């Protein structure tokens, strides 16, 4: 790649990843019905330009989970899909179902006006009559970049799900010190993963405790399915250390779901951390 084309790609990426660009995955699940097309479900997932979409489709004999990611390259976009599939292949001698698992990746180059057709069960399989239409859209939406999902299921027998997968750029962390029935005043922090540590002082019963906290991404998931489907995308970890010692006191990991997680401290207090998505800016 020449220098000029490389710089144009970088400029295009930079322009697309600006704070006002919003990406939408528009989805329709279609089944051909006597020459006509029967829409079983439709929906849309939108968010910042680095948003991914997780699609789940289940039948009696197959389960398809896929994580779709887009990488804008100039006027085109590279659409990648990490598939994790389970297919029922029979029954054991004790009558229990036997499933085979398969994971693979698909990559295709499309333009913004193209419609991609996804055959989740393969185009030649018996269930291949069903397909998913995917249209990618980008729009400039001011500073609003929170993920959103909309979903309409026309056929209730279909087990189909769409999820936005967004890795948090910031996280709101609320810290408390707890000892017995006493709780310190909540200390909210707006932390950015992998940024330099922050010093926090919490006061419980008039006794101050100074801690150094930093936000990190979790270690890669051990399971290949969890890694492929980015099931830990919204998990962050809070590293806690003393101010005067580089040795960490511990690490608290959790999803941004407003659930408090606790870390016992050597002082006898318990640090409670609640992770949540930050408010809109």
């Amino acid at each position, binding site marked *: 790649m020449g220098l000029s084309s490389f710089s144009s790609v970088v400029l295009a990426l930079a322009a697309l990843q600006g704070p006002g660009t919003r990406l939408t995955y528009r989805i329709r699940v279609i089944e051909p019905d006597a020459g006509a097309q029967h829409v079983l479900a439709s929906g849309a997932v939108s968010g910042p330009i680095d948003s991914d979409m997780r699609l789940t489709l289940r039948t009696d004999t197959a389960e*398809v989970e*896929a994580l779709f990611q887009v990488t804008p390259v100039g006027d085109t976009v590279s*659409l990648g*899909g990490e*598939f994790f*599939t389970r*297919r029922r*292949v*029979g029954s054991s001698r004790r009558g229990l179902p*036997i499933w*085979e698992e*398969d994971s*693979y990746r*698909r990559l*295709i180059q*499309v333009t913004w006006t*193209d*419609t*991609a*057709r*996804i*055959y*989740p*069960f*393969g*185009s*030649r*399989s018996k269930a291949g009559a069903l397909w998913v*239409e995917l249209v990618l859209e980008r729009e400039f939406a001011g500073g609003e970049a929170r993920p959103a999902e909309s979903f309409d299921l026309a056929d209730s027998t279909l087990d189909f799900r769409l999820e936005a997968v967004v890795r948090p750029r910031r996280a709101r962390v609320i810290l408390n010190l707890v000892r017995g029935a006493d709780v310190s005043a909540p200390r909210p922090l707006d932390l950015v993963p992998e940024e330099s540590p922050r010093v926090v002082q919490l006061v419980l019963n008039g006794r101050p405790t100074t801690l150094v906290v930093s936000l990190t991404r979790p270690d890669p998931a051990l399971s290949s399915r969890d890694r492929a489907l980015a099931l830990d995308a919204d998990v962050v970890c809070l590293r806690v250390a003393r101010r005067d010692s580089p040795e960490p006191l511990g690490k608290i990991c959790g999803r941004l779901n407003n659930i408090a997680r606790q870390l016992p401290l050597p002082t006898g207090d318990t640090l409670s951390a609640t992770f949540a998505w930050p408010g809109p800016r």
Partner: protein
Amino acid sequence: MADTHEQWLAQIDAELDGELPLAERAALAKHLATCSHCAGARASHLEVRVALARSAGNPHAFVVPRPSIRAGTLALWVAAALASGVIGGWFASQRWGGPGGGSALEETRGTIVVQ
């Protein structure tokens, strides 16, 4: 009553000579039913005696031949059984297949195409 193998062989010789009393013949018969070694030895003794009698000019000396399976026949049957098992297994695999059989893997995988 004989206790050792040599004693039982002596009993067998006496029995074939017609010199063994009835009670000891009964004990020998009971022992031969459980001791294949002694039963084989008795059959060998009998064959030797018949052969000697025939060589001595007694045309009526006769012994029923012991059943035997020749090694070649046995090997042939084993080979035939193995071959039929392999052919049957191959046929069943082709006909019904194992779990996951059927269409090619790539045909069952999801695909993305541009319309």
